[in-house]
């Protein structure tokens, strides 16, 4: 087993080589010591980044691909009283590590099994027309992951050979994992679990 410092060094080396190949298309990186390295690439360089990682840098293992919707949910945590008017909620889009300019981000992880290094990749998805290039020509295994992301978030993967619904029935409308898609079970009647939560006495919350 390699030490954490050694792994972190190898990740930094991989990011450096990726940066050398992509140039300005590598927008931002974030290193969380001992936990991982995040890389954000420009939307038009998404496919190229995959190709470089797989063919030149030895990241042969495709781990997963998904997306994040950074819009805060207009329904909160589904604990509103349906008889009362809905409270005002913030709609500020605040992306996480490596920043971002858009509401949706596609997230993927690739791995190098020889050197035991993994990288987390993010890419902005344009708001007007949510689409990025497909990774299926690079990693064949991205097929199902992209189909799932497409049906759940409505992000189109350009160049995907067979973009059909994976889990949902064919006629399903809407994109369930978007934050503005309501979880109906929580909206039609109050969440029964809420009565069990007894508020902590003043000054006790957050400390033992």
């Amino acid at each position: 087993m390699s030490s954490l410092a050694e792994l972190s060094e190898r990740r930094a080396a991989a990011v450096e080589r990726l940066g050398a190949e992509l140039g300005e298309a590598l927008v931002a990186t974030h290193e969380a010591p001992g936990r991982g390295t995040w890389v954000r690439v420009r939307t038009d360089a998404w496919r190229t980044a995959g190709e470089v990682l797989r063919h030149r840098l030895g990241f042969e293992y495709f781990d997963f691909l998904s997306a994040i919707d950074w819009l805060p949910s207009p329904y909160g945590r589904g604990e509103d009283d349906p008889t009362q008017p809905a409270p005002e909620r913030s709609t500020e889009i605040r992306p996480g590590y490596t920043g971002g300019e858009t509401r949706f981000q596609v997230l993927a992880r690739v791995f190098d099994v020889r050197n035991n290094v993994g990288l987390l990749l993010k890419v902005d998805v344009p708001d007007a027309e949510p689409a990025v290039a497909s990774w299926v020509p690079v990693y064949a295994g991205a097929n199902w992951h992209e189909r799932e992301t497409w049906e759940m978030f409505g992000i189109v993967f350009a160049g995907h050979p067979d973009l059909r619904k994976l889990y949902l029935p064919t006629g399903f409308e809407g994109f369930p994992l978007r934050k503005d898609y309501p979880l109906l079970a929580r909206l039609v009647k109050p969440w029964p679990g809420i009565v069990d939560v007894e508020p902590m006495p003043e000054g006790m919350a957050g400390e033992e």
Partner: protein
Amino acid sequence: MTMISDRQQLSYIASQAADARVNVELETEGMTLNIGPQHPATHGTLRIVCRLDGEQVVWAEPIPGYMHRGYEKLTEVRTFPQVTTLVNRIDWLGSFCNEVPFILAAEQLMDIEAPPRAQHIRTLLFEMGRIANVILFLGDMGVQLGAVTPVFFAFRDREFVLNQIEAATGGRFHPNFDRIGGLKDDLPKGWIDESRAVMRRVRSFCDEMEDLLLGNEIFEARTRGIGVIPREIALQYGLSGANLRASGVDWDLRRDQKLPMAWDKCDWKVWTHPDGDSFARYWVRLQEVRESSKIVDQLLDTMPSGPIMAKVPRIIKVPEGEAWVATENPLGEMGYYVVSKGDLGPFRVKIRSASFSNISVASWVLRGTYVPDVITILASLYFILGDIDR
């Protein structure tokens, strides 16, 4: 880019040549065969549509989604401690193993670590979950090939492991035992000695399976060279766990990753097999159960004393951040990508389950095989429906 071993390449070429010969000899009419959603070979509700040419599959596609429960959406309206109840149900045969990576991700974001005794017991129950899970595969694979006895042996011996899990956690299938910062309870009295006896039983079960199946001529004929997945394909499709190691990739997250768990305190071996066929996948899993029982034995001997819970606030708020934690689960790599906004519950959880990737390779590997081998290959890839559909 990658080298396929000569042995793999030869067997692959040989199977292709054999297929080509059959096609020349028999001109047959195509038909579509629908397997499932309800079929014993699918372990749940997975549907597989095959287009056949005679007995040969020319095109196959698995259709999941009959059991999709939307856990990723549900986690967004749960608090962090409530999520373990949900994720227990992903791979229902090894449910304790599902809780661990999520709890570790939350702990990583909160920057706390469970005390050594809790880490120890976690690892112990994790390996017991693996044994309870994979034992069922070892018996079930026989039943898929027409050998009925192994599955009875498997259910018999699995019961002892489940009893131990139940005695420690209170739940046979869904322990829900992990807490952020440690565990719910300590081990009951007498549990350690009983577990040693159970591990001896597990090892004798492995020996029985070796005699009954691995040395069996029919079993070998039905599995050797069937469903060969070369290394490069396995990596591209994100196969993990024993499926990947059976294709010759020496990669095990228990060994290759630094996590606050007790695997690095034990002496054990990661087994690989160069062939990548159904036989190799069975063989690797059998060795894994043996290694797991060894890990459990060593952990039982070296159990540290001390608390089982770190100091955590009564109301758990996880600081803002993102974390990715994966562990080597019975079915393969299981990971959670957790995004927190400093709230009571997660902002987004991406669940990376092993079977999803493991079964996505099916349409590649089923092409060109024969109908009875479809069942062999699906059984050897070993998936749990809840782990595909989440």
